[in-house]
């Protein structure tokens, strides 16, 4: 979910993983790449090879279909789960 949200702006594997790890828990190396591969296969990500720092990197970005999935579907679901869970956790 965090990775999909992050890909509203273009990014590539290593930098994206580092950015996510800087702000929260670390991702396994073999989590992000296969995830993006699958999302790309489902048409939710667009990908392009571009030169970055003197070498070719594979950049990903949310496709229009991916944008729709993220907002409103995934975000709505996420917020509704959050709203439902919060009072239960506070009681505990």
């Amino acid at each position, binding site marked *: 979910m965090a990775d999909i949200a992050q890909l509203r702006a273009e990014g590539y*594997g*290593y930098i994206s993983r580092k950015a996510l790890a800087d702000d929260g828990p670390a991702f396994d*190396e*073999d989590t992000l790449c296969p995830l993006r591969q699958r999302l790309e296969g489902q048409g939710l990500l667009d990908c392009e*090879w571009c030169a970055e720092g003197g070498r070719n990197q*594979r950049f990903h970005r949310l496709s229009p279909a991916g944008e729709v999935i993220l907002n409103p579907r995934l975000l709505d679901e996420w917020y509704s789960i959050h709203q439902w869970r919060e009072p239960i956790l506070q009681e505990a």
Partner: protein
Amino acid sequence: MELLDRYLRSLQFWLPGDQRHDIIAELTEDIRSEVEEKQAAIGRELNADEMRALLKRRGSPLRVAESYLPQRYLIGPRLFPIYWMLLRSLVLYFLFPWAILWLCFSAAVPFYYTHSPALQLLRTVAPLWTLGVYTIIGLTAGFAIVERAQRAAQDRSEWEPGRPTVVRDPNRVPRSSSIAEVVWNGFILLWWANALRMPASPDLRITSSATITQYFYWPILLLLVAMVIVGAANLIWPLWTRTRAALRLAVDLAGLAMVLAMAVMWAQGGVFVELDGAKISAEALAKAQQWIGVSCVIVLLLMGVSFAARAFQDFRRTLGKQPSLNRAVKLLVGE
């Protein structure tokens, strides 16, 4: 970077063909970026040990490749329990009895190890073994085909939310099984008491052996009568009570003891039946007797396993516990 190249080449082998190139290119860049960052932090190139540690943390090539591969299975989680149950029944009712029989033949039967070499036994068992293997292959292939067909028709389920689900009380005896028990045991009882004549060949007369008649006639008769009575009681009062479970536990244990006694008799060279036929050669009669003996042992083995399973269930009921819901046990008991 030789280590990295070897790692990537090995990984490449396991990746799906159409995505191999892209994945390897992406992973190469990913690992190189990490290596460069580490080198910048320590101010020198990574040595072989550090490189090895970095790759080790990423995982073996097969494990990394696995995360890119689609999930594949021959038989899915919906059909697997049924497939597994059938496979276990096949092993329990077919392969296991034959393996025991093979061991008995090899170790305990004087007729066998004095008159026929082990090769003859292997010849006897080989077709059944082959049949077992083919059945397992057929069963697996059949389920794999059904799995594929089901996946194709996944969303065309005929399940109706309004339809009630049948929940069976494990202490209720199905009337069908009580009727079957009474009819089957009654039939055997009549045959055993000579009240029912089976069609027989005029050239071949088969009678119980003297040992069977002398030592087992009355115990078998009483056991059959007790089984008919328990079956009839279950037909009239189809819910198990602790008293009735205790009564059947006694019957099960008596049955188990009898099966063991007959197996011991057979292992010591005893015979179940005697054959008499004026027009049949002595050699053919001996062979027929051997085969009848083998068949009787198989039946005894199945009966022994069934009696043991029933005793287990009845013991639990006698203690006031729920019977086991294990499918293999239920199958053996016939519940």
